[in-house]
């Protein structure tokens, strides 16, 4: 399917090319972010009564998975408040694009590049999820910590090093941005080739050169390249979902590892937050107790050995069935794109269970954000228990089944024969069934 270029649309072009709309949204998200930290620190310690917990983990976290990533890939990154102060400092102003070759900051160390640190950070969020997702103080401290680390790193390192290599949410959105129906690309490569200044690369906060973009993983959709290109040679395309992986976008070992971590945390979160096992919830919550240490051991065994081990076994069987001469390492990365639809659909299905039942918490905390007994909008005390409706169960089943289909189709595209897909399909089926059982069984 050919693409639709939004930068040529009379509706979207002014919104994309002008810095004002983006700045206004960023100002709102920054104000909301600071307010969230404040309410988390001084408001009620009961998570369901505090704006910080409800807005971050029910409203924003759900919007990210149901709206921002499936429709816009890394679109959240273009309005994320965390790197803003550092970026403004780097740019020498709020409205200025990045200055050309003026920075004396260092490049991020080569040994720490890739998604490894993001995968570890996401794993830590999964490990401490029961505390972070329920405690306003911890939520506020985590957000404040990310804010401070992003700022300090922007003083030392070039561009958005924090977002590219450290931010756990950046890892999550970047990975699944490959599936999203939105991309920034160049129109005619010959124009880029003759443009010596490369202004698009110079101003890009992410350090991307649009002509070389083959994947949307590291493009933050900030639109700076679109604004500075003297030839109007940048397009913002609508494409079909998953087009990037079906066209054979290369994966790396760190992306493969990150994809597997996402699967593990989706399973773990479904078991902890939506399962009926009270002992598991308490073990995940009571940090430092012997039960918590058992939880840590089980979680890490699952994340580092069980799920990666099963994937390793599936890929190894797949290569053996075809008597392939490829190295196992290259096969591990070659087949890894199928992990993306499987992971994204599982997270969406989890979010439907999680957010739909807890959405009744959102309006009351607007009325009483600190949990101090206020009733600003007349909505306090109207929190319902929430329940899974037949429609949401139906949606979850269809979404996970669609993920199984999409993942197998991707694996089939990457395989030379049906026989080679069988072990991968068994992995996909096992994961999909496990997810269905945890969410609906």
């Amino acid at each position, binding site marked *: 399917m050919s693409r639709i270029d939004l930068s040529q649309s009379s509706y979207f072009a002014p919104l994309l090319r002008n810095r004002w709309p983006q700045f206004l949204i960023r100002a709102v998200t920054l104000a909301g972010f600071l307010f969230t930290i404040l309410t988390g620190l001084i408001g009620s310690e*009961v998570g*369901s009564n505090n704006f910080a917990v409800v807005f971050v983990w029910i409203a924003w976290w759900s919007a990210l998975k149901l709206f921002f990533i499936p429709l816009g890939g890394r679109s959240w990154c273009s309005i994320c408040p965390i790197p803003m102060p550092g970026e403004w400092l780097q740019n020498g102003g709020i409205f200025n694009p990045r200055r050309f070759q003026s920075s004396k900051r260092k490049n991020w160390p080569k040994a720490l590049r890739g998604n490894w640190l993001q995968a570890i950070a996401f794993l830590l969020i999964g490990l401490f999820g029961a505390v972070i997702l329920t405690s306003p103080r911890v939520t506020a401290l985590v957000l404040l910590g990310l804010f401070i680390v992003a700022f300090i790193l922007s003083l030392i390192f070039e561009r958005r090093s924090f977002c590219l290599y450290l931010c756990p949410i950046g890892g999550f959105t970047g990975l699944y941005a490959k599936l999203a129906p939105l991309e920034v690309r160049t129109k005619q490569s010959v124009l880029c080739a003759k443009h010596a200044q490369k202004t698009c690369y110079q101003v890009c906060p992410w350090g991307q050169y649009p002509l070389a973009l083959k994947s949307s993983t590291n493009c933050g959709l900030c639109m700076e390249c679109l604004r500075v290109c003297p030839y109007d040679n940048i397009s913002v395309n609508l494409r079909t979902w998953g087009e990037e992986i079906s066209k054979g976008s*290369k994966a790396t070992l760190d992306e493969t590892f990150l994809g597997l971590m996402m699967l593990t945390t989706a399973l773990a979160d479904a078991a902890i937050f939506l399962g009926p096992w009270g002992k598991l919830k308490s073990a995940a919550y009571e940090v430092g107790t012997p039960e918590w240490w058992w939880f840590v051991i089980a979680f890490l065994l699952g994340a580092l050995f069980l799920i990666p081990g099963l994937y390793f076994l599936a890929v190894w069987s797949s290569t053996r069935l075809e008597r392939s001469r490829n*190295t196992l390492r290259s*096969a591990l990365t070659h087949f890894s794109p199928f992990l993306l639809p499987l992971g994204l659909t599982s997270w969406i299905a989890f979010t439907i269970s999680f957010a739909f039942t807890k959405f009744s918490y959102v309006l009351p905390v607007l009325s009483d954000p600190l949990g101090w007994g206020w009733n600003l909008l007349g909505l306090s005390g109207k929190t319902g228990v929430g329940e899974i409706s037949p429609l949401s169960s139906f949606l979850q089943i269809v979404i996970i*089944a669609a993920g199984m289909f999409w*993942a197998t189709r991707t694996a*089939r595209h990457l395989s030379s024969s049906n026989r080679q897909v069988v072990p991968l399909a068994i992995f*996909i*089926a096992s994961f999909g069934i496990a997810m269905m059982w945890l969410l609906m069984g």
Partner: protein
Amino acid sequence: MNRIARLVNPVKSFIRKNWFSIVLATGIFWLPLPFPEKPPQERHIRIEASAYRFIPEEIFVNAGDQITIELVSTDVIHGLSLDGYSLVMRAEPGQTAKATFTADRSGVFRFRCAVPCGNLHPFMIGKLRVGDDIFLIRGIALGLLGIGVAMRIPSTFSKKPHIGTL
């Protein structure tokens, strides 16, 4: 017009090639499954609620059973709200709350604490299974059908370089 055609044509082509699977998928969801139904009976179930857990955590009953739930809280005030049944209970510590209902809807239903009881309160959940979990069986069948359909799609692998060169 061209744009619409470009969007619609791949969908039409997919439907033409997979019409049988689509009919099958619809059947998986809506056709009745031949599971034997056990005769209904009366059940008394005592559920103990304490910090973030119900005991028993999972309850299995037959469709049509008349169920009397005794909810006992062993620490602070807890509640019980059963998805799909509009049943809400509240138990003070040391006191028993009772409610009776007929399990006339099959499937798996979560019950949740209905009274804020701490940070993990929104996740204090138990599970009631009424009859066979036909919905999950349908879901698994749908997922496996999806895998089967996907495996029938021709590979584009031959157009790509060999794995080792990637």
